[in-house]
């Protein structure tokens, strides 16, 4: 699973060599940031903001809140950069900040509302999965199906507990490995696998109309 991860708009192979090179590049950028070079931090921001947003948005299911949390995470990383010792990869550290902030935000906000993307319907509309679903339904109501699917997906993911949602988002949506998720969430790989298994069972039950 997770043969590639996207870094910005580029898919990067997650083979051991590639991961080392990504970590090395990030380490160089971090050193430059520590030396006071703002442009290096701009590079890190541009590199990870898209992925980080994806994770936070799918945990919160609210675009505005997600934007806010992602910004706060980058600010936190910037102001704490001197304390980053390089024991883990920079992106692991950054993800941990973002995930923790998201979890704190979720615990504090009781009233939440979904706030998704209008453009997602356009993207969904051209998806092969939607093609299959439309074919299975047989009624040709593509637009209605897309809208329904988007809402149902959000609802399903949000119905998971914070811990289960985190592993599902990081693994299935962001494409991280079990080991990386374990490092981010400060748990073991076994815990990650267990949570993932249970979360998928729950999701299958909610989305049974869409799953074969």
């Amino acid at each position: 699973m997770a043969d590639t991860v996207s870094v910005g708009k580029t898919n990067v192979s997650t083979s051991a060599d590639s991961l080392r090179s990504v970590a090395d590049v990030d380490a160089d950028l971090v050193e430059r940031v520590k030396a006071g070079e703002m442009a290096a931090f701009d590079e890190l921001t541009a590199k990870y903001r898209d992925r980080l947003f994806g994770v936070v948005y799918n945990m919160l299911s609210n675009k505005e809140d997600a934007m806010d949390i992602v910004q706060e995470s980058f600010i936190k990383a910037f102001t704490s950069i001197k304390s980053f010792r390089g024991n883990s990869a920079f992106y692991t550290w950054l993800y941990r900040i973002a995930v923790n902030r998201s979890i704190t935000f979720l615990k504090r906000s009781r009233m939440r509302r979904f706030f998704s993307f209008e453009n997602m319907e356009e993207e969904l509309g051209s998806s092969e999965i939607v093609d299959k679903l439309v074919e299975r339904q047989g009624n040709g109501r593509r637009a209605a199906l897309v809208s329904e699917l988007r809402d149902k997906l959000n609802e399903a993911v949000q119905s998971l507990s914070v811990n289960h949602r985190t592993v599902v988002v990081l693994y299935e949506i962001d494409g991280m490995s079990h080991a990386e998720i374990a490092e981010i969430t400060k748990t073991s790989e076994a815990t990650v696998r267990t949570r993932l298994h249970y979360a998928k069972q729950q999701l299958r039950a909610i989305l049974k109309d869409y799953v074969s």
Partner: protein
Amino acid sequence: MKDDKKIEIEDLLKLKRLERPAESEWREFDARLKQRMLMRVQKKDPVWRRASDFALSKKILTSGALASSVFAAVALIFVVSGTGGENLVSDDFAAVRPKLSNRAELPSVGETFVASEIPIPVNKDETHMEITMSVSEASVSQFASSNIPLFVHSSF
């Protein structure tokens, strides 16, 4: 054929990768992030702190040296002008009129002040200090640790 049409839960979840902001939203994000970072950096390092850090780091002035310099400068102004150094001291300590005690013979260093022993209810075992100091050497900080009240008046 059947497998081609099979949809897994993982396939549905991958659809959520399509939810991404437009480029215009990222531009707004970048601008806002920069603004917030600048505000955070400024908040963390106020001007007064930077100024004091600079002064202390350069060892330009310690607080004691600063206090003594100010005190000496003020005292010198009054002595030179001759318009009330004595009154200032005597007014301040009007409630207490200590007796002049015998001063030790010291080299003349301009004007001198004599600190007299004031009878206060203390244990007899305590040692009282009689201190003679010159105007130019007056320093409040030197007596900061003393438990004995120091009353200073001029003698010309």
